[in-house]
């Protein structure tokens, strides 16, 4: 379904993504891990065509989406949803309108400028919000919601697109552990119930282990690990993050169970 072939992106002399290739069959939940600057975000942004690739191909159902231009490119963006770390909603518009933005590509520009949506679309948007448990927030402005709620609005916008692939760029990095779990559970449900492929950049190992079917580790723009979550040992993690023996997973964990009081005490003393 998805084949990434020798994709490279250079910024000046430096390669942010350096000749990466992998393929995904079927609606898997793929996690990409690596330290910041490893090229995870750049890769997702290239898939969504927010950033252009320097070279390489990304084949989705037999066509190279990196070669699309103009209206065809925007049609692809409409089928490939993106979820951002900072939610990227329009803060002063109401929640339901933000969700309706998911189908901007399929409605006329004039109608959408005046915020005129068919009632069937509005009902669908409300149903999606209901599925994510935030239907009662529909008339509120997006900026009035908490971070976790805003991220669920962003997921609702993605679902409104009815996409085959959902890209999530550090979806829980700005959230507290409780909201992080709600958001990740929502993504997992969408993956399993709707059969949509999810590719998520994650910054914590325990999230990757808990939710992903497959984990890809990136370091300095290259893929250094590609396997099952169970194969993700501490040694492998050290390799991905380029850390030495002092690396402690609990230190970066956002899971409540993993809270290591001894480590916290050691830091405070």
């Amino acid at each position, binding site marked *: 379904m998805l084949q990434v072939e020798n994709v490279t992106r250079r910024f000046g002399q430096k390669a942010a993504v350096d000749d990466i290739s992998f393929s995904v069959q079927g609606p898997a939940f793929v996690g990409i891990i690596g330290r910041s600057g490893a090229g995870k975000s750049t890769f997702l942004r290239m898939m969504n065509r927010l950033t252009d690739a320097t070279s390489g191909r990304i084949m989705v159902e037999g066509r190279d989406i990196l070669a699309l231009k103009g209206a065809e490119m925007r049609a692809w963006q409409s089928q490939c949803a993106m979820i951002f770390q900072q939610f990227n909603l329009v803060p002063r518009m109401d929640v339901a309108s933000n969700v309706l933005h998911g189908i901007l590509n399929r409605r006329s520009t004039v109608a959408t400028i005046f*915020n005129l*949506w068919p009632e069937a679309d509005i009902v669908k948007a*409300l149903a999606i919000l209901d599925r994510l448990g935030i*239907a009662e927030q529909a*008339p509120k402005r997006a900026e009035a919601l908490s971070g976790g709620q805003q991220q669920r609005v962003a997921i609702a916008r993605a679902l409104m697109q009815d996409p085959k692939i959902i890209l999530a760029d550090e979806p829980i990095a700005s959230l507290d552990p*409780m909201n992080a779990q709600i958001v990740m559970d929502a993504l997992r449900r969408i993956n399993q119930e709707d059969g949509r492929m999810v590719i998520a950049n994650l910054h914590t190992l325990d999230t990757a282990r808990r939710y992903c079917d497959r984990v890809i580790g990136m370091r300095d723009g290259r893929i250094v690990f590609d396997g099952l979550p169970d194969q993700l040992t501490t040694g492998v993690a050290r390799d991905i993050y380029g850390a030495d023996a002092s690396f402690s997973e609990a230190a970066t964990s956002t899971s409540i169970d993993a809270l290591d009081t001894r480590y916290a005490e050691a830091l405070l003393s």
Partner: protein
Amino acid sequence: MSDAAATSTPQSRDMKALEALYLTQVRQKRLYSGILLLLFVLLVATGFQTANARNAGGFLQGLPNILSFPTEVLSEAWANRANVPGLIVKFIPSLIETVNIAAVSTLIGALLAMVLALLSTRGLARWPRLTPLFRRLMDITRAIPEIVIALVLIFILGGGPVPAMIAIAMHTAGALGKLFSEAAENADLKPVEGLTSVGASWIQRMWLGIIPQVAPNWLSYALMRFEINIRASAILGFVGSGGIGYDLKIAMQWGAGKYDQVVAIFLILFLTIVVVDQISDRYRNRLVKGV
């Protein structure tokens, strides 16, 4: 946070009610914007009729003549085009006078505007109860046309650049004060709170907490005002405050055969505005990006 409770599936009856509620809201909003649009179109249409009826010549009959004066000016200037470069050089001293009036009045006006703006911004004002006073003060300076102030001052002080400068500076203080105050209102108050927490005085809080945040906006407003003031200072030359406006008034007279001078004056005014725009763009970028 009630997030956890909200994830439990609500009853479908609630969902139906919610749907109906939201759809009613949407319909109501659409109705209001429709009425507003209709009102707007109606007002413009009737307003045009009224204005046209009071016009001496009539809008549509006059329309074809719109280009006749510019054509006359340009054709005469084209005939004497050889004079234009020489005239440009000749007018440079009066241009410098005009730009000087604009620069000094922008500087003085902007300094006054800074003080007035900070004193009249909600949440920042030194004396919150006096903010209406400072606001009305700015309203007054904006309400009186510059040309009226200049005429009165010319009567008192005699012709020359000083009355023009005072007149423009007053208007600038009011106009920039309002824009500055709006920019300051949107500034983040957290740095101010941080400075308050260490015991800073009001002036210290404003200078160190607010000014660094609003400087790029204030600077671009002030430079924009400088461009407007160059034009205002040229107009005030018409009423006897010197500068390039005085030359323009002499040259613009009908049948004087000096339209080549008019073109030369407009050309250097245009070039001056372009130069100011380019320079201000560069400095503003440097300030914003901190290069």
